[in-house]
């Protein structure tokens, strides 16, 4: 199958001028001395996105994700290299998607639609769908400058998905909408995938990438450091996030997570993770049997608030469980030195399949990660019982003869 988007050795270099004037006078006077630093926001990125595929892009802030998407959309031109896009492309780059605040929602839908290459008739045909999807029926004739940011995003997303593009490009915009709308968008994205459309998707949420994407790309300071299954990409991304002591991202773009990260890097290390079956010759668990995961860790500095987090993912990357030691009733104080944390399942509740286990240590709010081991262990489960389905719950049935029939009145 043909590639929907071919990214061919794309580099983008920004020139960061030292106090450059944009007036004619300043240009003439300072023509000789205008100095600049070069910022290599993208360096030799190459990958193809197959038709019908959903690609996730992971990377910390400032790693070039938005720059890459802007190049794909044609808003920025790469400094070198080439991008070929097959078919109609709709992009959701930032809040607002280029709406004109003075115009009504209605006019903006037409304007935006025609920017995406639709004719008036084609927009007429999808107009009601767009308004319905955005849930803006009663505001559609108001000027867009009076919309809330949530309404902006809803309208932008509604236009982008309803103009029926071949390739949909989404930057981290979904985070703005409320949860209900986010779910609606995800459902729509899935529908899109079923129609065989191509999606390129940047998300904060590793879970979203895992559940939506077929493959994912990891960017680090403008370079592509890996591409693979969502699970492996998320793992690579989280690992790099921890060990990154290389060049910090330019200026203000570094997120607080990363900065605290670096300072506290050596506070805690998860050294080893094993499970109750990993030592066995045949590491397969019988569904319903007891199971445990143990992490060996070392705390070097005192940490006031710390929890261990356990995540279990299914074979498709879907999150099955996330819990932490605070929720399980343990103290949030970390003991100094070596220690072990064990999560015990009295009876493993899932039927046959492969499960991936991730363990990490975070503060209680989850905004500081001390250490994270993505997919550090995997678990093979077999089920010899006869029930169908995913779950193996401790379940029994009883049958009683005679007695009155009690009906619950609803």
């Amino acid at each position: 199958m043909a590639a929907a988007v071919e990214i061919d050795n794309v580099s983008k270099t920004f020139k960061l001028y030292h106090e450059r004037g944009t007036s004619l006078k300043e240009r003439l006077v300072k023509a000789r001395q205008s100095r600049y630093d070069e910022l290599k926001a993208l360096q030799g990125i190459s990958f193809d996105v197959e038709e019908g595929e959903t690609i996730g892009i992971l990377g910390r802030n400032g790693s070039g994700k938005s720059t890459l998407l802007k190049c794909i959309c044609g808003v920025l031109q790469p400094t070198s290299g080439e991008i070929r896009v097959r078919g109609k492309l709709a992009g959701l780059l930032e809040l607002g998607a280029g709406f004109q605040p003075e115009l009504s929602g209605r006019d903006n839908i037409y304007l935006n639609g025609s920017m995406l290459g639709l004719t008036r008739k084609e927009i007429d045909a999808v107009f009601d769908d767009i308004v319905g999807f955005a849930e803006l029926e009663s505001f559609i004739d108001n000027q867009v400058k009076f919309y809330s940011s949530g309404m902006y995003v809803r309208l932008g997303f509604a236009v982008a998905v309803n103009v029926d593009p071949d390739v949909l490009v989404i930057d981290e915009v979904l985070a703005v909408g409320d949860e209900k709308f986010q779910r609606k968008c995800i459902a729509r994205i899935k529908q899109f995938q079923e129609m065989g459309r191509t999606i390129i998707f940047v998300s904060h949420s590793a879970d979203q990438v895992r559940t939506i994407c077929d493959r994912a790309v990891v960017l680090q300071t403008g370079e592509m450091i890996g591409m693979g299954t969502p699970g492996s990409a998320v793992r690579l991304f989280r690992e790099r996030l921890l060990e990154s002591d290389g060049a910090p991202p330019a200026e203000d773009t570094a997120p607080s997570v990363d900065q605290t990260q670096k300072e506290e890097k050596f506070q805690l290390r998860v050294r080893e993770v094993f499970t109750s079956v990993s030592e066995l010759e045949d590491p397969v668990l019988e569904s319903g049997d007891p199971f445990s995961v143990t992490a060996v860790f070392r705390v070097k500095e005192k940490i006031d608030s710390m929890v261990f987090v356990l995540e279990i993912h299914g074979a498709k990357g879907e999150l099955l469980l996330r819990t932490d030691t605070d929720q399980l009733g343990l103290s949030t104080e970390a003991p100094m030195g070596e220690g072990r944390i064990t999560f015990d399942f009295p009876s493993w509740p899932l039927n046959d399949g492969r499960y991936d286990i991730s363990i990490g240590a975070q503060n209680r709010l989850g905004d500081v990660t001390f250490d994270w081991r993505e997919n550090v262990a995997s678990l093979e489960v077999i089920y010899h019982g006869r029930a169908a389905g995913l779950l193996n719950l401790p379940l029994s049935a009883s049958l009683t003869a005679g007695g009155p029939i009690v009906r619950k009145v609803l």
Partner: protein
Amino acid sequence: MNPDAAAASLPADGHEAEAVVPARIKPVRVVSARVSVRDRVVEIWRTRELLSYLISTEIKVKYKNSALGMLWSMVAPAMSLMIFWFVFGVVLKNAYPSFVIYLFSGLLFWNFFSTAVSSATRVIVDRAGIVKKVSFPREILALSSIGTSLVFMFFQTAVLIAFMVVLQHAPDWHLLPLLIPALLATTIIAAGLGILLSAANVYLRDMSHLIEIVLQAWFWACPVVYSFWSQINPRLGGFFFIYLMNPMAPIVLTSQRVIYGHTYVHLTTPTHPGVQLLPTWSGWTYLAMDSFLVVAGLVLLWIALAVFGRLEGNFAEEL
């Protein structure tokens, strides 16, 4: 799992089967630093519907934002018409018959040209929000300024026609078709200049102020309020073509020749005999000049598109 090892593995299984999507015509768009002028023109043509939207929404915005709406857009041209009529016709007593029509016929084309060029110069910077977020041929923005000015020119034409009816001043019906090449030349030259300057203004923000000043001077180089043939030509002697190197001069002359109509007029002051207000050229001379300007304008437009293409790549980061 090693991510690099997994790189090529995925799409083989799940998606091959779903090739039932009806075959759509999928043009391939190339994003790179170099795109030929021909490809740019094709891309602009493909987005022509957007052009009409931009024009109609621009007019709508102007119309909505003030109580008197469209009338305001007529105030500035009406003012300059009144002032010139008062200064040259009443105070300085140039005594040209139907001087308002003479003025109006020249101003019509000049106003179109100058508003088109000055608004196009600003348009990319003004519309930074769109330029940074959506991808479409940016030349369309400059063209939409030209289009909007053209629409306002048509409104002014309506007013001019009303004037002519009231003053019972007929145009030269035989030469009326000459307005087509004149308008075509003005539009093409304004588009070329507008596209060029809109890109320059992104890098040199005071370009828009500079161009306002240049346009003011340029206006006086056009025979709108005075007569080229009776006042300028005799002084230049054989060098009259220098004056005509200003592309707007032949265009204004064409408009006056067609709309004002009279080349030799008897002045309204009885003491003075007649005066040769407009050139004695035939219609063919006008046609030749305007056709030449169309061709020259197309060359300018081609250069503008080439330059614009080189500068366009950095718009989103410069804005």
